[in-house]
């Protein structure tokens, strides 16, 4: 089982993502932004960071990287793809997920341990959780407020594509407390909080994040 983690210039959580993939028992494969090559991986993670400095708009430049052409094609062909934080922003910019991530309501960078409710345990990345379970993993971002036209939000809600919702305090003013969403197939998921920072209670608030990486192993085996 091989899971790729993409590094763009300015990606920060690639080494954490690789650590989390390894901890789940899969083989982690480093993917480089400039190489239009997914090296035959079974799933791809776009980690967090500030790709290209995010000086234009979060994720706006990264979507044009050579590797993204391959990711978009493969995702449309059913490859499981997870976008975390900046990776979520990149997936929205690339049109793989709807909506956009705006500046946090408080206008500050926010880093805290965040309670999340698992709303959909049927996606490729959440099958190891129980629907309705509450998990705690870190959130840390400047542009984390999910926004989309009402029709899109209604569609996401109606189709059960809101995968995670903030439980307790909403850290950024996100619409409907949305923390993560999926595409209609449930194979492409994006979320603002960082499961790769919650793989053991020594360096994170819990090991609740590991379930996402274990889930995709199940889905790849099943497929």
């Amino acid at each position, binding site marked *: 089982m091989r899971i790729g983690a993409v590094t763009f210039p300015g990606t920060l959580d690639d080494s954490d993502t690789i650590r989390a993939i390894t901890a789940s028992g899969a083989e982690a494969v480093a993917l480089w932004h400039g190489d239009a090559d997914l090296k035959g991986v079974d799933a791809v993670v776009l980690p967090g960071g500030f790709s290209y400095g995010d000086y234009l708009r979060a994720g706006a430049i990264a979507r044009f990287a050579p590797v993204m052409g391959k990711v978009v094609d493969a995702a449309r062909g059913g490859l499981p793809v997870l976008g975390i934080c900046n990776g979520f922003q990149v997936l929205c910019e690339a049109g793989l997920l709807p909506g956009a991530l705006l500046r946090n309501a408080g206008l500050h*960078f926010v880093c805290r341990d965040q309670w999340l409710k698992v709303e959909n345990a049927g996606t490729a990345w959440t099958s190891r959780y129980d629907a309705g379970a509450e998990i705690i993993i870190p959130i*840390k971002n400047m542009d984390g407020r999910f926004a989309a036209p009402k029709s899109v939000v209604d569609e996401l809600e109606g189709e059960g594509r809101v995968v995670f919702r903030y439980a307790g305090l909403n850290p950024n003013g996100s619409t409907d407390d949305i923390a993560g969403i999926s595409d209609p197939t449930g194979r492409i998921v994006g979320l603002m909080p960082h499961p790769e920072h919650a793989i053991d209670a020594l360096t994170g608030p819990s090991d609740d994040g590991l379930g996402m990486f274990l889930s995709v192993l199940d889905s790849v085996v099943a497929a």
Partner: protein
Amino acid sequence: MIDTVDNAKATPEQEQPFRELGLKDDEYSRIREILGRRPTDAELAMYSVMWSEHCSYKSSKVHWKHWSANTTPEMKAKMLAGIGENAGVVDIGDGWAVTFKLESHNHPSYVEPYQGAATGVGGIVRDIMAMGARPLAVMDPLRFGAPDHPDTKRVLPGVVAGVGGYGNCLGLPNIGGEVVFDASYQGNPLVNALCVGAMRTEDLHLAHASGTGNKVILFGARTGLDGIGGVSVLASETFSGDEGGTGRKKLPAVQVGDPFTEKVLIECCLELFAEGIVVGIQDLGGAGLSCATSELASAGDGGMLVQLDRVPLRATGMTPAEVLSSESQERMCAVVEPSDVDAFMRVCAKWDVIATEIGEVTDGDRLVITWHGETVVDVPPRTVAHEGPMYERPIARPDYQDALQGNGPEQLARPSTPDELRAEVVRMAASPNLASRRWVTEQYDRYVRGGTVLAQPSDSGMIRVDEQTGRGVALATDCNGRFVKLDPYTGTQLALAEAYRNVAVTGATPLAVTNCLNFGSPEDPAVMWQFEQAVRGLAEGCKELGIPVTGGNVSFYNQTGTTAIHPTPVVGVLGVIDDVRRRIPTGIGAEAGESLLLLGDTRDEFGGSEWAHVAHGHLGGLPPKVDLARERLLGEIILAGSRDGMISAAHDLSDGGLAQTLVETCLIGEVGARIFLDQDQDPFVQLFSESAGRVLVAVPRSEELRFTEMCTARGLPWRRTGVVDPDSQSLEIQGVGDLPLAELREAWEGTLPALFG
């Protein structure tokens, strides 16, 4: 026209604006004497900036004798590199070397809080890279004026956003620091930045330029007009040779940071180190290329020839003096063997980092810099970098010192009834210096890179260095400027003691010390007295604790008019822990059935205390006594207790005393406790005194006897002061009252958001 060496020889009488550049008449004369002629514009720019207080340490250097006089061979043996290098390096075991340094960025942060603080982070990170290390984490000790002053509302949010904006984008966890308010910092906020990095011991890179024929490569950002500051007088006012014309836009003297470029530069440097193709490396910080070229050349064994016109620029019409003085951020300079240049360029290209060969190491002993074929600098590099002026500034104990020490806190009205004491606990918890720092630390990424084991609000930050063995380091910075004001020698030792204790309570062993000495004007004999006392106090304190000072930084002129800040020698202590899984947390309640033990002696000590400050706005008397042997014993006991699994939580007692420590341990652990005060001592003194050398530990009941017997056997006073109550959501202090955690949390966490929202 460009002022060349030939031109300087031909026009010896030409007037030069050396005073505007900050040089004294005798300093200018000395430059002429060294060169045997007048300096060129470019040389004058180099000397003036390198001989500035900031770069040359001309007022403080004479006191460095205290470091060497107090460093024993055993202390020296722990250091792989010490004072004089970009940052100190210590051996932490398992083949790992750790480097750390603390630096000030005070003045820029007052002028432009966001960029000043941001570039402070960027600069200290490059210092760590210049040692060949991967930066692991940052910390920021910050000091501001009165919390309710309008200008604090301008400075603090900008500084915090700048530290976060740069550090978060750089991908380094922020694992701690300080936020202190005091009116003495109103016009001079202190923005200090610490970075810690690690490398394998065999990979230590020092800033050397050895090897004739080796190439000098400048890489990173382009060079622009930012941060040129005083040198602009050479271009715009006195000389007509400004090709940019009179309409050229002047940029602010504070530099602008680009953390994305720095992140890429870090990864690029690490790949270069891994390839083994770097002979020497130097960061470009204050004084830019003037500093980097003269330091690289004087640390090597030869000369250097630099073709300055090859430097990639981002402004047109820059003069050689401006190129040399520019403080554009995110640049590094490396010395590389000719056969490795292609490989070097390949790595830079991979990371889209601009790299340019600008010169080479020569077999002479001169630093020669040319501009389009003409020589504009020809100097002995050591005279620029290391042999600047050194002053023995006059020292005088201030006239006010006796009156200050004589005005003790004994006469201050103290709360005494249970209701008064209870209210005081809540008021203190909500006071700006004791309230939760969460509003600040939530703006910093503490998780990135996955090695953070402890961060704020823990007593120290802790980072895992080796994922296999679990070896890691703990870091704390401290200083109570009020204690230092009352007695600079003792106050500085108290800062050292507190940082040492903060490292020890996490289960780590203190190993080395760095510092950032923030003071007023060195031209004021009273300030120099404080400075000399502080340096001596720190050096002698370190000797007693057996841990070396590996480096430091001095920031003078932190004063408004004739009023200096409280002398603020911030002390950073680095500790090592063989396995971070053994760390001791701050919050209680991790294990069922814990007893709370207070270690150390509590005396009636309120001089300079937070209580005197909050309740009465009073500063006078003497600071608490310092007993470094006791601190050492305390550290040893906690380490032994941690190794044997006898301690489940620990928190030091400092600002605000026992009351504040209890509030924090309960709130962080989210669990209540029942406290029994000593019937034979004034409850007010027990709750609020700031006697040093004390720690509150939580001990599983099953280990209590073994632990207290160890304390007794080794002569450490202890007192069973309460129990953790897992079923309670209240801090109950017998004879004082019941303090629901919800009420305490509202008080503790509400203050900073209310002030800065």
